[in-house]
C-alpha cells in the first residue's frame, strides 16, 4: 500500500472517531445540565479542556456559555477539532483514497459531511441538540460498520482500525481525566445523589453505563476508573482499544505479537503490558491525572512512530532496490 494512502486512511478514520467523541462530550453535558439543581453553575468550559483547545477558545470567545462552547465544538470551522472540521478533514482524506476504500464507505462519509454541513447552515439543529448529536454518533457507527462489512480486512482496514482505536483511547482518557478532576474537587458533593448523577454521566458519555452496571454494579469512582481504563473487554476502554491497536499494527508490519522490530511496536507493546498489570488503587493513589497524562504522551509517541516508520517519504537506497526488484520478478 502506498505510504501516502495509508497515511490518509489512518487520519480519515481518526477524524471520524474524533467527531463522534466530541458529539458524545457535548451530548452528555447537555443531559447533565438538565439534571443539575437550579442555580448550579453551568460547567461548559471543561468540555473545551477535554479537547485541549482551551487557548484557542479563549482567544475568540469571551465567556464559556453553553451556546458558545457548543458552537465552538460543533460548527466552528476555525476550530480544527470541531465536529464540522473533523468531518471536513475526514472527507478530504477519504477523497484522496476513494479508490482504496469501498464505495459504501465513501457514500456514507460524504452524506455524513453533508448532513453536518446543512445542520451548520440551517442553524436550527441545536434547538433539538440531542437529535443532532445522536445522528452524529449513529453516522459514525454506520461508517465503522460499513468499514468492517465492506472493506477487505487487509492492510488498509488495519490502518483504519489502528487510527480509530488510538483516537478512541485518547478521547476516553481525556473524558476520564477532566471529569475525575472536577468531580473530586467538589468535595462537598462526594457521596450525595448529585455526585452519582455526575459519575453516571461520565459512563454514559462513553456508552458505558449499562455495561458498567453489569460488571461492577455500584457506582464508585475507583470501579469507574478501572472499567474505562483497564477493562479488557469493553470496546471503549483504553486497554481494549490499545490491545486492538497493537493487533492491527502487528498485522500491518507482520511482526509477531510479543516481539518488536520497530519503535512504535515496542512502545505500544509496553503500554499494553503496563495496563494488563496495573492496579487501580495504585494509580489513583499516585494520581490519576499524572497517569493519564503520561499515557496520552505515550500514545502520541506511538502515533508519531507510526508516521515515522510507515508513512514518511524516505529517499530510496539504490542497493536495497536492486534486491527488491529481483524478489518481485523472480
Amino acid at each position: 500500500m502506498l505510504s501516502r494512502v495509508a497515511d490518509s486512511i489512518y487520519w480519515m478514520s481518526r477524524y471520524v472517531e474524533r467527531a463522534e467523541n466530541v458529539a458524545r462530550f457535548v451530548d452528555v453535558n447537555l443531559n447533565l445540565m438538565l439534571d443539575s439543581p437550579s442555580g448550579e453553575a453551568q460547567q461548559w468550559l471543561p468540555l473545551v479542556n477535554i479537547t485541549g483547545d482551551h487557548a484557542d477558545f479563549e482567544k475568540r470567545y469571551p465567556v464559556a456559555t453553553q451556546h458558545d462552547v457548543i458552537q465552538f465544538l460543533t460548527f466552528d470551522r476555525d476550530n480544527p477539532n470541531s465536529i464540522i472540521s473533523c468531518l471536513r478533514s475526514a472527507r478530504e482524506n477519504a477523497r484522496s483514497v476513494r479508490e482504496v476504500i469501498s464505495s459504501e464507505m465513501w457514500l456514507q462519509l460524504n452524506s455524513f459531511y453533508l448532513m453536518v454541513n446543512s445542520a451548520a447552515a440551517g442553524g436550527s439543529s441545536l434547538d433539538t441538540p440531542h437529535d443532532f448529536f445522536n445522528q452524529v454518533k449513529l453516522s459514525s457507527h454506520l461508517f465503522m460498520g460499513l468499514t468492517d462489512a465492506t472493506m477487505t480486512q487487509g492492510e488498509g482496514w488495519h490502518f483504519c482500525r489502528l487510527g480509530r482505536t488510538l483516537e478512541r483511547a485518547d478521547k476516553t482518557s481525556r473524558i476520564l481525566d477532566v471529569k475525575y478532576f472536577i468531580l473530586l474537587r467538589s468535595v462537598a458533593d462526594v457521596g450525595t445523589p448529585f455526585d452519582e448523577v455526575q459519575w453516571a454521566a461520565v459512563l454514559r458519555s462513553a456508552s458505558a453505563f449499562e455495561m458498567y452496571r453489569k460488571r461492577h454494579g455500584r457506582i464508585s469512582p475507583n470501579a469507574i476508573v478501572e472499567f474505562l481504563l483497564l477493562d479488557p473487554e469493553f470496546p471503549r476502554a483504553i486497554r481494549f482499544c490499545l490491545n486492538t491497536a497493537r493487533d492491527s499494527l502487528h498485522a500491518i508490519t507482520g511482526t509477531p505479537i510479543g516481539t518488536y522490530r520497530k519503535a512504535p511496536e515496542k512502545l505500544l507493546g509496553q503500554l499494553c503490558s503496563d495496563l494488563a498489570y496495573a492496579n487501580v488503587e495504585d494509580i489513583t493513589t499516585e494520581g490519576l491525572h499524572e497517569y493519564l497524562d503520561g499515557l496520552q504522551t505515550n500514545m502520541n509517541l506511538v502515533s508519531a512512530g507510526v508516521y515515522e516508520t510507515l508513512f514518511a517519504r524516505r529517499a530510496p537506497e539504490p542497493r536495497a532496490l536492486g534486491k527488491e526488484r529481483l524478489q518481485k520478478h523472480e
Partner: protein
Amino acid sequence: MKLGEYEVGSFFDEMFAENGRPRAIARPLARNIESLPPGELVNRQLAADRALVQSGITFNVYGESAGIEKTLPFDLVPRIVAAVEWDRIERGLKQRIRALNLFIDDLYHNQKIIKDKVVPGEIVTSSKGFRKQCVGLNPPRGVWCHITGTDLVRHNDGQIYVLEDNLRCPSGVSYVLENRRLMKSLFPEVFAASHIRPVSNYPIRLRDMLEDLASEEVSSPRVVLLTPGIYNSAYFEHSFLAQQMGIELVEGSDLVVSDGFVWMRTTKGFERVDVIYRRIDDDFIDPEAFRPDSMLGVPGLMEVYKSGNVAMANAPGSGVADDKVVYAYVPRIIKYYLGEDPILPNVPTYICAEPDDLKYVLEHLPELVVKAANESGGYGMLIGPHSREEERREFADRIRANPRNYIAQPTLSLSRVPTLVDGHLEGRHVDLRPYILYGKDIFVLPGGLTRVALKKGSLVVNSSQGGGSKDTWVLAENPLTNGDKSENIGPGATQMAGSTA
C-alpha cells in the same frame, strides 16, 4: 407528460423528426415519458441530482478558490444513436486515430509527410505540443496516442462532423459510466425495451490495453494512474478509474526514479512500476525533462521512459497532433497514410496562417467561430454570432498579432436533444465525445459523453462554462434475445437457518 408541445424548431433534433413525431429509435423512450404521471419526470430528475451530490461525483472549477466542488449537471433525457449510424462513426474514428498515430510517429522520425509537402513543417515545429525530447523514440507497437476522446457534432444538414481530436488527457469517461448507472436505476423499463449497448466494460478494456504496454519481460505488470492530486478538476475521474481498474492512484511524490526504474513508495518499501496512465500534461511529468518548476511530476521519469523500462499512456509528445491548426490537415493526413477518404468529415476550417484564409476570417468574424490553437475547455474562443463589436475588434488584433495561433470555422448549428427545463422539455444543443482505446487493436466505447449546453440558445457545452451531460444510448443492431433471464433461484437451495422457537 405530453410530448406534443415540444418545439423542434429549425434545428436537427436527435429525438424528434421535423414533423414533431419521435424518431423510430426514440419511440420506446417517448412512450415511456408520455406514460409518466405529471411531475414524475421532474421527480426522477431530482432523484438523480441528489444521487450525484451524495456520491460526490464532482469536478473542481479553476479560478475559484481551491476545494470548490461542483457536480456536473446531469439531464435525464438521453441522446439515442441508431446502430447503423454508430457503425459509420466507429469506422470513421478508427480510421482517424490510426492515421493520426502514423502521423505522430512520422513526425518524431523521418518527417516524410513534411518532405512530401502535405503538411507545412513550420506548423509542426511551432506547435506547442511538439516535444523535441521525443524525437526518435519508439513507443510499443508505434502507438503514441492510446486514449482519445474525439469531439463530434451534428449540423443542421444531419451530417456528423469531427470538431476536435483530444489526444492529450481527454476526460469525461467517468461521467459516461456514472450517467449510465443512474439511468438504469431511473428508467429500467426503457432499458428492457430498447436494447442499448453496454458501456460498463470500459475500465476492463482500459486496464487490458495498459497492461499490454509493459515490456514483454514483465510477467504481471504493475499499472498506476498518475494524478496531479485532489485539487485537479478531473480528480474524481482519476480516482474513479483507478478504483474501477483496481490499480494504484499515485501522485508524483509517491513515485521515485532509481537504478533506471520507476518505484512507488509503499508501507513495505519500494515497489517497481511498469506502466503509467498519466493524467498530467507533458509539461509537468518530469521537471528534469520539461518544466523545471513542476511539483507534480517525477524527476528522471523521461530517462526511464526512453530506456523502455516504463511505459506511458498517452506517450509524451502525442499532443502535437492535438493542435487546432494540425486538425485542419487531418483529412489530408488520412489520405496520405492510409490512401483512403475520410469517413467522418472535418468541420470546414480556415487557417489564419494562410493569407487568403486570414483575410476571409477578418472580414467575416461575425459569422465565424475562432479558436486558439492550443486552448481547450472552451477558453480562448470567439463565437461570432454571439459576440459584441468590441470583443471582435479585440480578437481581430490578437489574430493579426499571431495568426499561427488561430483557426476559424463557420458557426455550426449543433443538433438538439430535449432537455428538462423548469418542468417541461426544451431543445438544447449537444455534442458527443466517444472514447477510443488503441492498444493491440482499436476499441471504441459505444456511446460516449453527450455534453449539453444548458443555457437557452448557447453553443458552449464545456462543463467549465455552464454545460451539463446526458447519457448516450447506442442501440444494438440485432437485439439480443435474453434467454438467460430465468427467475429460478437454482437447484437445491438450502433452507436458511432460523430460530425454531
